[in-house]
Each structure stands twice: as C-alpha cells, then as structure tokens.
C-alpha cells in the first residue's frame, strides 16, 4: 500500500497553490462535525450504517471521515445521483430497508444484532448480501447485490472526495493554481508528495 504524508492537503490551505473555489469546497467538507443524531435514518439504523461503513471502508488512524453522517445528510437533502436501477425502489426506501435487511440477515445467521458481532462475522453478512442470496425477508423484495453495490459506491465516493481520503492516496490535484508543467512518467513537481 502506497502511503503519503499526512496534512499534505491541509498544509496547502494557507498557501498560493490552491484556487479559492477549491479551498472553499474542501474547507467546508472538513468543517462538518461528526453527526451524532441522524436526520434521515432512525438512530438504530444509523448505528448499523456506522458499523457497515467501518467494514466497507475501514479507518484505523486518529483522523476519521464521517461516512455515515455524510450519507445521512445526502439522503436527508434528497440530492439524488441522477439515476437508479429500475429493479430498485427509490433510494430513500432502498437504504432504509437495506439497514433493516442487514439486521435480519444477522439475526437469521447468528441470532444476534449486527452491532454485537465480531468483524469477521460482520464481513460474512456483508459478503452474503453482496453475493445476492442472504437470509432475511427484506431481500425477497430488495435486490441484495444491487443494494450492496449502491451503498459501497456511495460510501466510496464520500471517502475519496474528502481531503483525508485524497491525501491517503497522494492525490494532489487540489494544488490546482499554477497548473502542471511536468506531466510525463516519473516527472514530479516540487509540490507533489513523495510516497513514504
């Protein structure tokens, strides 16, 4: 796994290498506090979403991206992403019913709440959903693998749109003010981070 120095992007905020519009967007994203009370999900569903997010995009450092909170906000605002699979119910229904389905599968397989299971068991449940044939009545109506795909893609987008996620992969595209002159193979400019 390639690693890049922490705070590479944060350190750009005070300098001359980032356009105002990019800085504004990133600062706003950084300033959102971790969500305690969900606006869209019920508190029990939200706790499941938090646990699922931790398995789909595990975060082990001290800095955390509030994936569940951001997804909750996006669903509450009904922003939408322009399309859905015709086989799926509207996004709001799909995400609510999906959280319920995860709990159902957990109860059916391990006779326990998803929240109380060890990570390996949680992963087994998520894999069963991804593969499309999990236990639980919800999944008779909600196509499990499409639900899984949409949830994973939504969380992945939120993760790598966040400055912490971008920093993690060495994405310095946000240093967008002067433009790039050295664009060929192995041509790095001074402001580009080197892998640690």
């Amino acid at each position, binding site marked *: *796994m390639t690693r890049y120095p922490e705070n590479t992007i944060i350190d750009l905020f005070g300098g001359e290498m980032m356009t105002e519009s990019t800085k504004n*967007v990133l600062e706003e994203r950084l300033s959102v506090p971790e969500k305690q009370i969900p606006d869209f999900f019920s508190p029990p569903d939200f706790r499941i979403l938090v646990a699922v997010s931790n398995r789909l*995009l595990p975060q082990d450092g001290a800095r955390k991206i509030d994936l569940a909170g951001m997804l909750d906000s996006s669903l509450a605002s009904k922003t939408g992403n*322009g399309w859905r*699979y015709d086989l799926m119910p509207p996004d709001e229904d799909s995400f609510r019913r999906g959280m319920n389905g995860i709990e159902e599968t957990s109860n059916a397989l391990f006779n326990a709440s998803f929240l109380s299971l060890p990570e390996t068991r949680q992963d087994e449940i998520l894999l069963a959903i991804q593969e499309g044939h999990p236990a639980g009545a919800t999944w008779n109506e909600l196509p499990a693998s499409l639900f899984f*795909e949409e949830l994973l893609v939504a969380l992945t987008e939120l993760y*790598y749109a966040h400055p912490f996620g971008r920093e993690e992969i060495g994405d310095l595209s946000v240093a967008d003010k002067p433009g790039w002159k050295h*664009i060929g193979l192995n041509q*790095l400019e001074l402001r580009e981070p080197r892998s640690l």
Partner: protein
Amino acid sequence: MSRDLYKRRIPLLPIKHLMITGNPMKIYSTNDIVDAVIIGTGAGGAPLLSRLAGSGLKVVALEAGKHWNPRMDFATDEHSQSKLFWMDERLSAGGDALAFGNNNSGIGVGGSTLHFTAYVPRAHPDDFHINTEFGVGEDWPLSFADLEPYYEEVENFIGVSGPAEYAWGAKRKNRYPFAALPLNGAAQLMQRGCESMGIPTSAAPNAALSAPYFQEGYGMRPACTNRGYCQAGCNNGAKSSTDVTFIPLAIKYGAEIRTESFVTGFEKDLSGKITAVIYHANGEERRQKCNNVFLSAGAIETPRLLLMNELANSSGQVGKNFMTHTGMQVWGQFEEDIRPYKGIPGSLISEHYHRVRDADFAGGFLLQSIGVMPVTFATQVARGRKIWGQALKECVSQYNHTAGINILGDCLPHSENFIELADEKDQRGLPKPRIHFTNGTNEKRLTAYAEKLMKEIWSNAGAKDIWSFNRNPHLIGTCRMGNDPARSVVDKNGRSHEIPNLFIADNSVFPSSLSVNPALTIMAVSLRTADKFLELKNN
C-alpha cells in the same frame, strides 16, 4: 484566423483580461414572436443558435441549468462539480443498465460540453454507411462530404489541438489549428505498449487549446494548464466547451439565453404547427411565442419531451434505436509514478482498429489512453472489481501508479434498447424516463476482441494487476434522421417529418453510433441543420 494566431503565439495576458468580455445580452418579451426557440445549449443547440443569431434572426435559447462563471464557481473536486450533470432521476433497465448522473448528460449553459473529455476525432467516411458495408445497423442520409466543411469550421472556430499529420480517416484538407497537447503518463505507457506490438499511435485531437486564442465574442482563452479535470469542468476556458465558444458568439449576435428555464410543452395551431414553447422558470409557467423550435436537449430529454407531448411520433420511432458506444476500459498498475490527475485525460489515440480484417463483428473502434480523477477511479474500482474493505483501499492507494486505456467503438441499434416514459413521476410531476439497454452480439464480440488486445498492450507496457471495466458511454439515437418517414423522426436536415417548424439537432438524430466520440459530429450536424434551415427560410 486561428491559424494565424497559432503562428504568432500571442503572449498570455494577465488573468483580469481573460474574463468573459460580457457583450450585453438582448432580451425578448414572451409576447414577441421570435424566429426560433432553441431548447438546450450544449453541442447540439449552441452552434445553430450562433448561426441563426448571426444571420439576423431573433432567437431565444431555453436552458434548464445555470450560466456558470468557471473561474469562480468550479472547484478541482468531482463531488461538488456534480452540479454539471443532469440529476433528475432516470430509471435504468436492461441487461447492461447504464449509470447516469455523473456519467453523461449535462446541465447548465454549455450542456454536456461542460464535462466532456474534449476528445474530438472526426467520423470516417465509411461510418456513415455501416449498413451498406456490413448489412447491419443503419446508414445515414448524410455523407462525410456533407459534413466535412462543418468539421473544418468547428475545429477552427472552437480551437482543436492535434497532430501535424493525422494518420486515419479521410485525408485532411488542412492541419489542426493548434499543435497537439503534451502526452501525459498514461499516453506514454500506451505508446510504449502499442509500439512493442507494431500498433501505430498518434497524439489525439482534443478540443482544448495548446496556445492562447482570441475567441470572438468571448475574449482571450488561455492555453490548457494540464489540470486534468476536463470531466469535472474546465476552470480557465482552455477547453472548448460551448459556454466559451458558440454561446458568447451567439450573445454577441443578439441571441438571448434564458437560464433555469425547464421546457415542458408546446402550443400548436390548428394546422399542427408549434406556436409557443411552454416552460417553467422562477416557479411559474411561461410561454414563448415563436415561429420555429429546435430541440437540442440530448438523446434522453429530447425524446422524453416529444413522448410527453405526443408529438412528431406517428412513426412510433421516438425513443427507439437507442445506442451508446462500446467503451471497455482496461486498468493496470505500473512501477512508474503517473499522477493520473495531470494532463488532458485522453492525450493519445490509435484508430488502427477502425476496421479489423476477418473480424466476427461489424464496425470497429478507436483506442484511447486515459488519465483519471480520483473519485471516478475509486468508484469504478468499487463497482467494477467488487472489492471492499482493506482490499478496496489497497487498490485505490495505487492511484498514482494507475493508468488506463479504453476503446470507443460501434454500437448497433436493437429493438430492445429504447426510452419510454415510466409511471413514476419526478419532482416536477413529470414522468421519469426509463432507459433500456443491453449489449447485443455485435457489441459483445467487438468488446471481447478489444479486451484481449488492450490487456496485451497493457501487459507489454509493463502493467501489473490488470483488470477490465465494461461500460457504455454516450447516449445516441432515439429520434433518428432518415429519408423514410416510417423509419425515422426527422429528415436529413433535422426537420420533423410531421411538424414543419420543429427541428432536432443533437445526438438523438444519429442513425448509427459512429466509431468515434460524438461531440464534434453533433456540432457539425448542428451547423448544417442551421444552414439548411436558413436556405429553406430564404427560398
């Protein structure tokens, strides 16, 4: 003029001189009977808007989105730039259900050109008669010769950068107006892989400037700074989207652009001619009286509007013949530092496989190198590789060592691929469009051939962990042009077979997909449609 500028290489002006020059815009009353209302301001609507305004007609463009100021409004950030994409929900059906949203149709002055990759090869002469050549698909009622002067005009006017000599297609009468853009890492890798297999490549034609250019009606446009976010909106006017090319010219000539105006219907007289366009703006319904209407809302919204209003469809062809392109991508990881966010994403091309000897498929494809933005890459890994958890994070962490190639190839029309109105309503109370798409045998064979080829190229270029991602880009067909009114919606001049003052100019009129990216051809057809309309009007 552009050729002279290129030779002189005018120096870069300070940024304050590069702002939109701001010709005052003419404003019409909704009671003025304007000569034409144009619905949409992208590659289909903007060229003809400027042409009609330039010939002295009173024209109003209705645009569903806003008129952005890219310098102030565009961030180097995919998430916030989703404002450039059409986000009214579409229902995606079929065996290869298409992803919409951040993937194709645009909104805002400039339409999809706000986020197009700016890859602008011309179609080949044989693209226009695929049925004559292979016995499948549909011939165009137009030939390459009909469009050639318009290709030339568009390339010179919007500023296309390309190689001194272009190896494929009809021989060019003139060079590209600007020198090719520099090759980024992905392009160098594709060059390396292809060279080892004897496959010729070339710097690609791109609608982005390699040198500054004075754009009439707009002012100075600077050269591309290699920022790499073409698909999320260019922030300095180097990319030749219509908001910095045809639209400012149209405004200079007296066109009015009405933004945040969403068209829902039409008024007709007893003879069936359209007399006004009904639209929503500022929370109220308005009507613009007019003598002619041009629909340029793209291959989904154009047929949707006709279907909702039961217009121009006695052939039953509206919404039918929906096509995309075959567009498989192959990704790999390399030792080299690539930084896929740098440079124009598609800087290399090969059209060596435009036709493949002894192939088991009709048509062909081009090969393209791809740089990629981080969120696009990460979500494709999630969707395409179906990995998650630590495995997903590890794959995405190789971002700076990742490069891709893709094809852009033919897609035939099939009866099961079409657009219809769903019962479900959107936030405006209008029926959502349902789009059915499944790749047919020809698409599958072409893709299988190309996948094997691309994996070999990538392996020879030094890639490890090679994987493919199948996708179908671009929305094409649904209101095709043709000579037979029973099998098409508009004639070869874009005019409805049924309603004499209704015209369509966008990707929906394409009878076949063509084996190249559509934007340049959409613009060329748009200018031709305008000229034919003016001929008709003046005779």
